[in-house]
């Protein structure tokens, strides 16, 4: 039976359904890109949850709007604008947020102000451009089925570079994340690490938004890591679980969305959320109090 991409049918035979999925090149590309992004965002997101930089991650994902509108205004590829704004965002959040002994309340305010400024710039660019900025919904929610071979390669190299940076910096980064004061006293460059990690976070956010759209990056960046850190506080097992959750959720979401009229981002976010709720409910039932995602490891004093 030959499959028809315009009219996919879901049967009871799971093997046949999966066979139909991988019959199409665009679907193979989507699954490949999804796996690459899931691995990258799982690793980066795990550190993000540990460092409690969820708001920073969200702000970096919002850079899609000023980035795209600035690039459109300048006549450049949209991705360039996105990466430029993500990079600038990482620098500014890292410098303002990481300086001196900043309290969390001030960091949250400075990140929020930066996000407002960037979005305001985006509105200004749109207004100066005068035209309609493409299809805003597809910009905000991604377009996973249109991924080319070249984009898969780019995603793979971005992911490889980011993971390499994380692996090289793993020990000092963990130290600086868990106890910035002691790490700083021991000569670990806490602030430089913060900027480098935010840059990697920006890359991960930009890559993830290819799959889920900028608004739903947390479905892969945050939820798998939060679920895994609920199950265990030990770094290696929870990191492995994060990877497993991320790839599983992505493939499941992409697979279901192929047979459905609804977009992949919705399924990925919903499955990821359901997994998180199950894990939290299970942890509550078992009375597991070892590691809430809210409290991954004891962090004293100030967020660096």
């Amino acid at each position, binding site marked *: 039976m030959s499959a028809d991409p315009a009219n996919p049918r879901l049967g009871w035979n799971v093997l046949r359904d999966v066979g139909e999925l991988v019959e199409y090149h665009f679907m193979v590309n989507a699954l490949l890109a999804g796996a690459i992004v899931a691995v990258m965002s799982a690793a980066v997101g795990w550190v993000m949850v540990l460092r*409690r930089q969820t708001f920073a991650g969200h702000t970096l994902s919002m850079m899609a709007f000023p980035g795209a509108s600035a690039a459109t205004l300048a006549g450049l590829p949209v991705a360039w604008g996105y990466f430029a704004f993500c990079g600038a965002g990482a620098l500014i959040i890292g410098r303002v947020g990481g300086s001196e002994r900043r309290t969390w309340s001030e960091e949250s305010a400075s990140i929020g102000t930066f996000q407002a400024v960037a979005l*305001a710039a985006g509105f*200004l660019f749109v207004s100066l451009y005068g035209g309609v900025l493409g299809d805003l919904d597809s910009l905000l929610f991604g377009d996973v089925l249109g991924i080319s071979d070249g984009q898969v390669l780019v995603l793979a190299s971005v992911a490889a570079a980011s993971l390499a940076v994380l692996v090289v910096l793993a020990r000092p980064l963990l130290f600086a994340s868990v106890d910035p004061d002691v790490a700083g006293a021991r000569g670990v460059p806490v602030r430089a690490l913060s900027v480098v990690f935010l840059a990697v976070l920006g890359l991960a956010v930009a890559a993830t938004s290819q799959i889920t759209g900028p608004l739903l990056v947390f479905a892969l960046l945050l939820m798998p890591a939060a679920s895994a850190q609920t199950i265990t506080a030990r770094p290696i097992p929870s990191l492995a679980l994060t990877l497993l959750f991320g790839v599983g959720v992505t493939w499941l979401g992409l697979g279901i969305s192929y047979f459905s009229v609804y977009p992949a981002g919705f399924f990925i*976010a*919903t499955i990821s959320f359901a997994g998180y709720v199950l894990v939290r409910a299970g942890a509550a039932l078992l009375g597991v109090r070892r590691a809430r995602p809210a409290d991954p490891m004891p962090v004293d004093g100030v967020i660096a």
Partner: protein
Amino acid sequence: MLSQEFMRNALLAGTFVALACGVSGWFVVLRGQVFAGDALSHVAFPGALAAAAAGVDQRLGLVLATVIVGAGIGVLGRATLSGRGGGVALAADDTAIGIAFTFILGLGLFFLTRFGLSSGGASGIQAAHTLFGSIFGLGAGEARLAAAVALVVTVATVAISRPLLFASVTPEVAGARGVPTRLLGIGFLVLLGVVAAEATQAVGALLLLGLLAAPAAAAHRIARSPVVGIALAGAFALVSVWGGLVLAYAVPSLPPSSAVVAIAATIYYGSVLLV
């Protein structure tokens, strides 16, 4: 300038929204909850779409969504608030906030697709989009409603300001003294939900974020005393809105929200450099 009706409406709504954002923003910054305010403005759109799907008034869905999510964040944040003192513990809520609003935005995408598929559904999306207005597009009735809601929120925030301040700075001591810290936290987030619902409709989500964070952050840097700080935050927000509206009126290609945020951010970055 004041002879233009849209300008009078913008000034009326803008003045009171600025007051509400400045005053509640001082507590938002103190409690490290800027992300919560940001998340509340994100859930407004899915709320309106869900209401359209259910066939009820979209504004009702919008307010319900922000208020319920606000209360939800407050309830979920309880464990972290009581655990360790002060601002650091509040940061822990961010995981829960990020997860909650991502799930709700995913639902929003579902409704968006659903309307896109059904015949005549595009009108539902259109109607939802028109809910999220620009401050220069307000009618007289909308402006008065926005001003009234913002005034009520400002008064309510000032009314609970003493126990809220106590509960924010030293939650353990406040709890031991019989201050209902948890209830106050939830109540404040519900107020924030009302501000978010009104502000996203009247002036746009961008202005909400800019006016919550920047003026209050500048006030916190400049003044240690809460009374002076709250007054300063309100004043900075007012200056930003008035200045921004005048600037946007003078320069037609400059969107009003961008102008307001630009002034608010200048005040904040100025305070970072000078203080």
